[in-house]
């Protein structure tokens, strides 16, 4: 980004403005920049809050909308905003996978490979041979999944170690299943067994826009998507902020958080200066991690006892403070408000030398 001073230089060059006129413009600019600065003591936090929550009252409650003409449902509006400030872990996060090899074929292949398939999807029959204590699994549609019976067997072996398993005539046999109730437990376990793809991945949609092939995935684990071959890890993102924090670190998580809040607000068509969201991101990540805007996050790390007492869980905080011998140094707005003193903000930061 070029600074405004540089912009002025360019402008003067383009319009052949030199000498006194240029100096005059420079002076005007300096004045404007000086005038537009923040004054010290400005309650930036409060203005940020108001700028975000005042339009929130105009936002819709409609919980879902469909992301980018694809069939994936995503939370939107006020509920989504609350979710973001809470850093709530959602099950249905949407990951947008970008590809190293930008082609339809690789997109389709990766999409096919990451979707979770359960044993139930390919299981055509399961029965229990009581006299031989043997469970037989019959399959169909394995080819569509690009899998062989051996593949399935290896997965089954991993999860059902207790019973010896083997392949005979296109079926998998599990032996030494002693009782019927044992079989029922086993059956439930087998049906839910994930045999292919990444666990929790529910839907994939392949998108094509501006020459870019991307895959939108609902659910699943961001960490695992990033490890899939052919995924461009430099630009693949997700809506799950905590996952980004765990995989890519706080800086990335802060950026995703700001991006998501901004997206949610823009969808609703409310105008908020982007830098307010930056303030929110900076405050939430000030302690080196990401803390939600709730009693479990930022409020907990506040030093001022009175500010915390005013929020939630008054009694718990009061007694904890007594045992921990906490001190309130009265440098927040709320603590000064409570004891009826001038708040140290805005014009409260300065004193009048001459009393009127």
């Amino acid at each position, binding site marked *: 980004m070029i600074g405004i001073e540089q912009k002025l230089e360019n402008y003067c060059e383009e319009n052949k403005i030199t000498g006194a006129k240029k100096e005059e413009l420079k002076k005007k600019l300096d004045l404007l920049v000086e005038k*537009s600065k923040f004054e010290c003591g400005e309650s930036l936090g409060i203005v940020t809050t108001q700028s975000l929550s005042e339009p929130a009252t105009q936002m819709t409650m409609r919980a879902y909308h469909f992301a980018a003409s694809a069939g994936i449902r995503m939370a939107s509006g*006020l509920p989504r905003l609350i979710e973001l400030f809470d850093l709530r872990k959602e099950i249905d996060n949407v990951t947008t996978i970008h590809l190293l090899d930008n082609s339809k074929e690789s997109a389709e292949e990766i999409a096919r490979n990451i979707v979770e398939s359960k044993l139930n999807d390919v299981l055509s029959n399961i029965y229990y041979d009581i006299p031989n204590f043997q469970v037989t699994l019959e399959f169909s549609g394995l080819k569509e999944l690009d899998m062989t019976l051996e593949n399935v067997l290896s997965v089954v072996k991993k999860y059902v170690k207790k019973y010896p398993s083997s392949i005979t005539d296109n079926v998998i046999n599990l032996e030494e299943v002693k009782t019927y109730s044992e079989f029922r437990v086993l059956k439930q376990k087998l049906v839910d067994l994930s045999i292919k793809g990444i666990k929790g991945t529910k839907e994939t949609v392949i998108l094509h826009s501006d020459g870019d092939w991307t895959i939108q995935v609902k659910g699943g684990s961001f960490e695992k998507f990033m490890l899939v071959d052919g995924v461009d890890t430099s630009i693949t993102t997700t809506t799950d902020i905590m996952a980004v924090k765990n995989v890519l670190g706080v800086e990335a998580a802060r950026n995703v958080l700001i991006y998501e809040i901004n997206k949610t607000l823009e969808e609703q068509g409310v105008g908020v*200066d982007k830098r307010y969201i930056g303030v929110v991101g900076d405050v939430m990540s000030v302690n080196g991690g990401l803390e939600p*805007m709730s009693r479990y996050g930022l409020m907990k790390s506040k030093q001022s006892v009175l500010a915390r007492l*005013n929020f939630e869980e008054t009694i718990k905080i009061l007694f904890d403070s007594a045992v*921990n011998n906490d001190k309130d140094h009265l440098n927040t707005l709320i603590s000064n408000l409570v004891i009826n003193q001038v708040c140290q903000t805005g014009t409260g930061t300065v004193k009048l030398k001459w009393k009127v």
Partner: protein
Amino acid sequence: MHKISGIEFSLLSPMQIKKLSVIEITRPELYDADGYPVERGVVDHRMGVVDPGITCRTCGYKLGDCMGHFGHIELIKPVVHPVLAPKIYLLLQAICQKCGRVMAGEGVTGLSPCAKDAKEKCPFCGEKQKKIKFVKPTTFNFGRDELTTEQVRECLERITEEDLKKLEFKGGRPEWMIITILLVPPMTMRPSIILESGERSEDDLTHKLVDIVRINERLKRILDIGAPEFLISDIIELLQYHISTYIKNDMSNIPPARHRSGRPLKTLAQRMVGKEGRFRFNLSGKRVNFSARSIISPDNFLALDEVGVPEVIAKTITIPERVIESNQEEMRKLVLNHGNFPAVNYIVRTDGLKKKVTSETKEMISEEIMPGYTVERNLMDGDWVIFNRQPSLHRMSMMAHRVRIMDGKTFRMHLAVTTPYNADFDGDEMNLHIPQTEEARVELKYLMSVNQQIRTPRYGLPIIGAKQDHLMGSYFLTQDKITLSKKEVSNLIMCTDVKVNLDKDTYSGKDVFSLILPKLNYTSQTRTGQEVVIEDGLMKTGYIDEMAIGSEKGSLLNKIELHYGGDEAARFLGNMSKLCLNFMNTHAYTISLEDYYLEDKKEIEKIVSKEIKNYIASPSKETQSKLDQIPKEIEIIIKENLSSESTARIAAETGARGSMVSVSQIIGVVGQEKLKGKKITRGYYNRSLPHFKKNDVSPLAYGFVKEGYMDGISPTSFFFDSMHGREGLSDTALKTKHSGYLERRLVSCLHDVKVAPDNTVRNERNQIVQFTPFENNINPHKANKGKIEIEDIL
């Protein structure tokens, strides 16, 4: 006045309680036969007075001056503090049951880590540890034996100071968590009220304290006579119950103590918590004097930053004004004016004595006042006051206005200023606050005034701007065809503050509008895409609509504010509103059915029936999306065919009121009614309403309304329309709740973030949040869209 620099929280020791206390309470009775408080009873007058006329026996002051004094109850048997019981449990786990040393290994600090790291065998004395069990709410077991509270206290007493450091237990001695002496709050904290019948009604706390004293005394007696063990333990348990509920009456394992009427008592903890609790209701929520509240109504002849105040209010509310030599005479006149309007209600002498001005004393007082006195005079024209409408969602909900005393009983305000307050005049009430110090008045004038708040800090554009009739007026006025005679122009312009020599015989509408414009160049577009050009303050082409002067958008207004400042922008808005509304007085408009009349609606009908037919023939994504496109197509058709004279259309296109979507819903089709963002599918089995056949695929059976409001919609359509309408209503009701809580949380988390003197953004712990405020140190409240561009300085 001393300034409080900090507040420290810690546990109260029994010694401190005794020091605080002025009296030991031993009698469970409240009053004797004469109705006088019993000596050493719970309502003893030594703990403060709550009735008028009686003096406090400790400090000698009367009601209002005596702030109350603590008493105490010496408990015969110690009692576990119910809220601190979990902490006691952790301590018991952490220490050796015999020697009392903390068993946790080297380097382990903190209460719960130490409790977790406890060994089975004490590393100091080798004692094998019994299993500790915490029986909620207040009992502890070592193995199978239940500990008496004395035993628990003995355990805690054994902990050394050194170990307390390791446990990070800083609030005092741990045995203070066992109550041996109970602090009795002063009477002022639990006042008794006298009912109409003359009966006394005591506070919940007093009731609870009576219970405690009674049980305590009974325990004393029973121990003296040497009663059986089980009886004693029963009474001890009862004492524990009463003290537990006295402190916190909503614990999960204790049945709440109830009033005779069956209502649960509101004891100490309940008094503090929640929205109606001490903290949020009384400590953070301040009540103020010098305020007024009334219904608001509009007044076009006020300046933007003025507020019309009824005389009744102005007479009651006062402003303190220091008498100095230069205003001495003026103040004397005001004092003498008692009984008429601007007058003085009180004077304050140099020694601080306050005197009321009455018709008898006015002459004497007017003689008396001299420099150094303070005069509390009525509100007068030009005084700065804070005007506010709730909910105060942003800082523009509280702005400073100049007072104009007016007849009537409502607050009057300029129309353009309704946007930041989100006010209308259907019965809205607003508040007025009158500053009482010179500092406050200066801050109001230079920081809070409406003129300073035109640009919102949210996105850096003017939030105050023309609305509704202003825009209709400016549209009609700046039409090409408008020509006005000199007389008409003088009539129009006379209500503005423009001073001009009218030397031409006829003026165009644009010329008249140019009269109120400051000198500037402006090129932009109207909402419909027509070009607007203003050269050197003279309007050349186009017309003025929402995009130029409307609230939250107006780019012309934006430019004026940027180049000439808020005062000039406010002056322009005042002139504009007077000019436009004055013009509308002679060029009125109506909206009638004719404005929604289309000669040929066949095309619309054709599109609708075609798409519906297509969808029924093959319900698919494609046909559905075609169906969804209908309202848009129809809007285009209506835009092409509807007369440009249609006031409904003009209102929508200038941004004065309504939208083209609504117009096309009235003339054309309403379109798909949605519930939760989807077609209306729920209702009956396989159909939305019983009027349709089961599994009907027709869009009409799922909330598509093919008629327009003008032609009337079918009964089923009407029902779907109502469903959609109802959803909207319940939505807004729910939304306010959620966004309110969001705001509360954001404020709690962000209120301490401010710009520090070294130009960094810091929080309450002085951590740097941002090195440069707002990334580039440009305040959107002061810069155009929060940015500085070359165009701004040309």
